């Protein structure tokens, strides 16, 4: 069973990023759960969701000990760095995570300039998909082709085929950055 936490500012697309991973898992015959942190949320505050996937079944959907945390801003990094599983990954958007990331020697911090990459592709909104590409590469559970097929299937069902090329480019850019 794998656990991934997606965290960032509201509006950075972390809930959608988590859903993309969950749909990729389903598309590739795995079971998956997605659960947001809900409760008293504050405008401008942080937002996060937890995705778990497994070939057989997922027990509790809640946050426990993530194999990877995607942190898109400083508060997210600080909040989650201590719950990453030993041997796991902290995947950070190095354009916005400026705090000291050298806090644990039992995890790997992957620094991806996600904002720079997405701006370079012409859309700052593509940040979450760039980071999903990097996450898929780091986790190593799905090939690039398997993941892109799952992602495209999800957006096609939402009637967003028009953005398919942009999404694929963003995904590939993130994937290659790891």
């Amino acid at each position, binding site marked *: 069973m794998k656990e991934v936490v997606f965290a960032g500012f509201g509006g950075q697309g972390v809930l959608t990023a988590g*859903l993309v991973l969950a749909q990729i898992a389903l598309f590739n015959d795995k079971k*998956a*759960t997605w659960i947001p942190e809900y409760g008293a949320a504050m405008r401008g505050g942080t937002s996060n969701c937890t995705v778990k996937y497994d070939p057989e079944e997922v027990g509790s*959907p809640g946050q426990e000990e993530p194999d990877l945390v995607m942190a898109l801003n400083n508060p997210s990094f600080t909040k989650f760095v201590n719950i990453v599983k030993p041997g796991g990954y902290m995947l950070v958007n190095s354009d916005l995570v400026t705090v000291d990331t050298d806090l644990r020697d039992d995890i790997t911090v992957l620094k991806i300039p996600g904002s720079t990459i997405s701006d370079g592709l012409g859309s700052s909104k593509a940040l979450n998909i760039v980071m999903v590409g990097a996450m898929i590469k780091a986790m190593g559970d799905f090939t690039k082709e398997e993941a892109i097929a799952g992602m495209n299937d999800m957006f096609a069902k939402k009637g967003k085929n028009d953005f398919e090329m942009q999404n694929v480019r963003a995904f590939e850019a993130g994937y290659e950055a790891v």
Partner: protein
Amino acid sequence: MGDMVKGNVAMGEAAIRAGMHMYAGYPITPSTEIMEYLSWRAPQEDRVFIQAESEMAAMKMVYGAAATGARVLTASSGLGISCKQEGVSYMNMAQYPGVMINVVRYGDGLGSLMSGQTDYLREVKGAGNGDARMIVLSPSSVQEAYDLVYEAFDISQKYKSLVMILTEGGLGQMMEECEYSEMKTVPFASWGYTGDRSKDEYRPMGMGADVYAHALEMAAKRVTIKEEMQRWESGFLDDAEYVMLGYGLPGRAIKSYVKARRAEGEKIGYIRPISLWPFPEKAFKGINPGVKGFISVETSDDGGMVEDVALYGKKYGSGFEKVPVYGLFCPPGIPTLRFIGEKFEDIKSGKMKEVF
């Protein structure tokens, strides 16, 4: 392959596909997406959707619509269901079918926004004033939430009883794979009021002249429901030294925990009740006679189901009356396997004492 669907959305769609005619409700976190979804979906299928001025009004609207033979639904959370109790009791007295969903938020009074299972005692032990019970079903996954709501309307009509889907904030808010079943088109029940006085049969508002007959009829109905409606999932019971019991999210958590510990040789089993009333007492029949303890795993201050575990656990098997019953009460939120594991060690070492 199904797609990722939010629990609340799946339950709303299940009601539509089960032939629900009418929904009335009042929004409250964490159940709101059910009515938000139905506000969009019900008109598409030519069903009635009403956002009532209060929880009480919503329940009375549902009561009135049920009197016409319509398939009715209301959904809320914690305190919202408290407000509905008068209507619940009236529907029980009239033996009108209807489906309710409680997406539980943790706590009493206004409660909190955290997920929890703190409404067990109200839903399972009572249904307003009188002796009435509701059939209470609790899902552990989004697919099961969909399936139970889809079936609940038929169960409700079969037994002329309210059916309560007792779920949790966490399940309402989470997404998981869900496949939808076929759309049913269901006519209004033939016994419903039509508004045509020449055709409608007079039915008294109260129990009628023969209260004794009503009492016997209700008692007999509950015996039938107890016999026919017990549902559960279980595993590894025949040689279990400890048996964990949990419903809803703790139910899936213990199943996962037990499987993992079994792989390490720990003799532990699980029962995941799906029906909470009637409580699945038949599940105890296959348990190892040498079992050392029953453990009720609940997201609750100090437990609700633990009382039923004690009551029914001690009813079955030789020597079960001496088996200690423990309460493994998870804090507000989503239960974690780590917490369950730590508390299980406390039980085995004797650090945690039994409740019963």
